[in-house]
């Protein structure tokens, strides 16, 4: 079992690595660059391989071993990209200007130490929670893993998982998580709770790794550690990650898209891969949860606004073309799934004359406002103080310092998050379920999806501690 698990994980990372290798090594921060690439490779590897696994599963019914052809094909493509990148590495590594390195004061060595302690604690808690509830929580068991189990055991009938007979398991939901789990089970040869636990663990810690490493590249090492402390200091991230819901994976892809768009600004024009990979990450967000579509629309609108604001029309057109190259293949899979296989989503299906009544009901607006206020102020689950207040206080203390090259990325990210929140309000408004129940059951998870992106963007704006006169 250990060998099979090893092959499954290594192959998945290898598939992602070839594509991510096109980013090159960003000097002068090779270690942070390596960690960022590794985290992106893990996430994109799981995402791409699940989409390919889905396509091969459709082509062969019942699920046979034909998916191995897809795996080998993906691996060959990845290796070819990697070899090509190695051959042209001079072109890739002689670039990437980043913010000037500020020497880390020796006295601030405690930050890496505290971060190390926190990440070990977070890992221990994740293992403890997973050992205690290896099947995950309600949605994981009855939506994501139930569907994965049906796909695995369904034989020639596996597509019945998308029928209305299993309507309560939301058959219209995208398939990244269940397909990743089924793929893992196929490698291991049997159904085991180890696979969904590992998938959840990989996305949870890749989110933390990507947040820290990308900030280490774009800002400073200490800024990255502080961001890591804030991110992992929220118990909800680890608890919810271990619950095996798809909110942490979709949050990873939101973050990856924004990080890649910010890194792109630090790379020479000739390196297109960051924009292409951003498109892929956005597509994989759509392949993970329906919220991915809202993210995609919000992102594109925000990006156009950011580029138009800085009068970069030529860059915008080029960027959109490259973004579409990365997005199109994944989006095609998702659109095919949504239009040809999955039933109509319950939210769309439930609209009618009642929608007008709900939209014009002032009490629903008030209830949504109260719900947002309550959940935002208690977000994180530390039961002491909302991280929002701490972040506000921290910003007052250290001040703001924005690199000019980060401005488009920051504007894109902040506007995207704003549009997403507006989109959530709209969904709560038109949703036929009781507003209070709906918000209580889902808003904290929706905010968690955005949380890594918010933390990343926040620390792109906050002045690094080395550059605060009273501290440095």
């Amino acid at each position, binding site marked *: 079992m250990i060998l099979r698990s090893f092959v499954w994980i290594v192959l998945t990372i290898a598939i992602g690595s070839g594509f991510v290798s096109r980013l090159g090594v960003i000097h002068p921060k090779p270690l942070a660059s390596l960690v960022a690439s590794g985290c992106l490779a893990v996430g994109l590897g799981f995402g791409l391989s699940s989409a390919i696994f889905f396509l091969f599963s459709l082509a062969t019914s019942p699920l046979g071993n034909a998916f191995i052809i897809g795996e080998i094909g993906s691996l060959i493509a990845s290796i070819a990209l990697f070899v090509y990148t190695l051959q042209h590495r001079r072109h890739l590594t002689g670039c990437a200007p980043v913010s000037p390195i500020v020497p880390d004061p020796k006295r601030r060595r405690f930050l890496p130490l505290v971060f190390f302690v926190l990440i070990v*604690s*977070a890992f221990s*808690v994740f293992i*403890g*929670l997973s050992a*205690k*509830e*290896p*099947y995950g*929580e*309600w949605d994981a*068991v*009855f939506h994501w893993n*139930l569907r994965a*189990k*049906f796909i695995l*055991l*369904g*034989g020639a*009938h*596996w597509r*019945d998982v998308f029928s209305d*007979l*299993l*309507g*309560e398991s*939301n058959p219209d939901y995208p398939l990244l998580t269940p397909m990743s789990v089924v793929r893992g089970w196929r490698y291991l040869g049997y159904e085991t709770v180890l696979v969904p636990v590992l998938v959840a663990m990989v996305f949870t810690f890749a989110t933390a790794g990507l947040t820290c490493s990308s900030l280490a590249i774009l800002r400073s090492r200490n800024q990255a550690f502080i961001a890591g402390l804030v991110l992992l200091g929220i*118990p909800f991230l*680890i*608890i919810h990650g271990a*619950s095996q819901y798809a909110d942490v994976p979709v949050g990873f892809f939101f973050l990856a898209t924004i990080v890649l768009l910010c890194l792109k600004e630090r790379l020479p024009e000739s390196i297109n891969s960051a924009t292409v990979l951003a498109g892929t990450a956005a597509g994989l967000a759509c392949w993970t949860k329906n919220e991915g579509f809202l993210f995609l629309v919000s992102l594109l609108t925000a990006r156009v606004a950011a580029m138009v604001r800085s009068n970069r029309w030529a860059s915008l057109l080029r960027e959109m073309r490259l973004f579409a190259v990365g997005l199109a293949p994944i989006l095609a899979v998702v659109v095919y799934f949504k239009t040809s296989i999955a039933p109509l989503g*319950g*939210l769309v*299906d*439930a609209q009618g004359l009642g929608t007008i009544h709900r939209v014009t009901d002032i009490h629903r607006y008030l209830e949504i406002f109260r719900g947002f206020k309550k959940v935002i102020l208690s977000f994180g*689950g*530390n039961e002491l103080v909302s991280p929002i207040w701490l972040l506000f206080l921290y910003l007052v203390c250290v001040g703001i310092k924005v690199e000019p090259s980060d401005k488009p990325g920051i504007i894109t990210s902040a506007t995207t998050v704003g549009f997403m929140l507006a989109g959530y309000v709209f969904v709560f408004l038109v*949703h*036929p*379920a*009781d507003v*209070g*129940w709906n918000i209580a059951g889902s808003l904290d998870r929706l905010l968690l999806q955005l949380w890594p992106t918010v933390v990343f963007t926040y620390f792109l704006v906050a002045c690094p501690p080395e550059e605060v006169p009273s501290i440095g």
Partner: protein
Amino acid sequence: MLRQTVTPPSPFVRRHDIRMYENRFRRVKEALPAHAVLGYISDPGRKAPPLGFQMGARSLHEAFYAKRFFLAQYVLLPAILVDDTEHALIVGNFDPPSAPDLESLRGLVLLRDFGDGVMLFTRRPK
């Protein structure tokens, strides 16, 4: 955060629930065709309103009804459970210590009692 490892964050589904249901439903699962679409009956006094988008604030009994249905569905996969008695075979899922409510079983014929509150019914011929 460490407290969460000993205090369940959700009252709904726990590991031992799934293990218990796997044991309870093992024999009925062996007796059923793998890909069957089956009816389902439990204590109708606890029947939940339709789930999904009709779902709202539930009573505790309704929540437990939903939990029992989903647990039965999870362990009987790849068979599909439908929460009605309009199918040729109907799985009964009752609290082990209590007898099923006979009123709710009108129109059904018991095919086999697998013990532990798990039963298999068929529809009485009209």
